[in-house]
């Protein structure tokens, strides 16, 4: 019910026609305004609209301009429980049905999850990377100061990963899928996944790194590697699991699977060595500081 308060504030002011009784024309306009504002005062109006126009496959045909917010609203049309469900499905795929990806994510990919999971991961890494370097320096006499520019490095790495890898995978799937003997009219599940659904899938697959980034603060070398292996294996396996029907039809099945898993593992290793490992034992350390200095 408190919705109504905010709604009233933001609506057009409804001037009653008594003030304008000199002119019949204005009266007509006032009636129009009344109708308009009464339809606008329904708080669900703006939120229902993209739902009505939304069709899984007819997305580009909607007449919303590419540059307007309305165009992107269909990628943010998710409820809280859907997002939670998708995060769970990116870690524990057995919790949801076998063709969850085909049914839900492919039909209605969202960008809310990928965007905010990436942002969360960037700042989680920045915060816990700083705490890790603090823990490394507690025994030394050096006064510790925090490193703000971890944020920009982590952001570059994650944004590149989340956008470039799905794009490459989408292109690879598009051009290497061999047409099998079936008819053109096939079920949706056998088509190669759309670009948006790959972005969505990759974004959600990063969610496991958020708790892992917090656990990486523990300065035990073998434990950190264990977390790398575990996180990369779990989310990489989930990625393969969802993409398997599409991947299987590609001519370069093994290469693609290898690339997906390899990049995922590389990302985790890179995070761990770069942000969480004490620089003393890594050969790369001088290089890191020299790149940071001119910033």
């Amino acid at each position: 019910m408190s919705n109504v308060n905010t709604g009233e504030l933001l609506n057009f002011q409804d001037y009653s026609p008594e003030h304008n009784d000199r002119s019949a024309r204005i009266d007509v306009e006032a009636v129009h305004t009344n109708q308009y504002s009464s339809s606008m005062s329904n708080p669900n109006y703006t939120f229902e609209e993209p739902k009505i126009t939304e069709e899984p496959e007819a997305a580009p045909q909607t007449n919303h301009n590419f540059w307007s917010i309305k165009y992107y609203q269909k990628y943010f049309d998710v409820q809280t429980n859907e997002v939670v469900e998708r995060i769970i499905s990116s870690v524990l795929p057995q919790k949801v049905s076998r063709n969850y990806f085909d049914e839900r994510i492919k039909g209605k990919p969202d960008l809310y999850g990928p965007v905010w999971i990436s942002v969360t991961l960037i700042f989680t890494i920045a915060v816990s990377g700083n705490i890790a370097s603090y823990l490394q320096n507690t025994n030394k006499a050096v006064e510790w100061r925090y490193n703000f520019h971890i944020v920009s490095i982590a952001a570059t790495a994650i944004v590149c990963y989340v956008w470039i890898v799905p794009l490459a995978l989408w292109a690879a799937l598009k051009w290497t899928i061999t047409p099998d003997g079936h008819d053109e009219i096939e079920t949706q599940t056998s088509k190669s996944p759309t670009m948006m659904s790959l972005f969505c899938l990759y974004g959600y697959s990063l969610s496991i790194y958020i708790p892992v980034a917090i656990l990486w603060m523990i300065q035990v070398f073998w434990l950190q590697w264990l977390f790398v292996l575990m996180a990369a294996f779990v989310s990489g396996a989930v990625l393969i699991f969802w993409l398997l029907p599409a991947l299987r039809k590609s001519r370069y099945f093994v290469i693609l699977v290898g690339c997906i898993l390899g990049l995922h593992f590389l990302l985790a290793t890179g995070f761990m060595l770069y942000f969480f490992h004490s620089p003393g034992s890594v050969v790369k350390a001088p290089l890191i500081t020299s790149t940071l200095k001119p910033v």
Partner: protein
Amino acid sequence: MTTFDSKYDVSKMFPAGDVGVVEGEMNIPTQGASSGDPMEFNTLDEPIKETFLRDLRAVGNKFYHVLIPREKTSLLKEWDLWGPLLLCTFMATILQGSKERADKSNDGGPEFAEVFVLVWIGAAVVTLNCKLLGGNISFFQSVCVLGYCLFPIALALVVCRVILFASQTTFLFFLRLVISLVGFVWATFAATKFLGDSQPEGKKALAVYPICLFYFILSWLVVSHSNV
């Protein structure tokens, strides 16, 4: 109706080409007087001091409403960006690191511009997220609310800055941590109170989460700021 009638009459009395003197009355509907709007007064001949103080009072009033977020109309009705600008400039000035203190393993904290841009871009992105989720709120209203709700965090920054003048112990670090945490919770609570209702029921958590993240990052900057 009136204008049409008079025109009609004029053209009947004076044939085409011979227009002569057109007489009439201009009637403007006196809306301001009838609605009794207090903002409708004349500001042309008032002293500058009064104008300035009135605006200052409006900004101060909004700060007060952020600290005690009981009713949500005050910030949403008339947005301004003066408060956010003041807070943002203040925080960026205090939080900026210094190049002299940077050594080879650290960069001495963020620059002024980095904090400044982080606040504005962050507020803009959080607002954009609200709009994309389908919230019915205007862009600047939301930026205004998010900016004004930085006030508790700015207060926490002032207190932490004062604490930093003493010699640092573990206890004082935890004190700073707790103070920033209180500022974070306070800011998030206030912003949620103001903005939460603009979202449909099932998406409220989705809109509130980025707000939390935004204030969390700024609180983190406050805690980790240690350049005296």
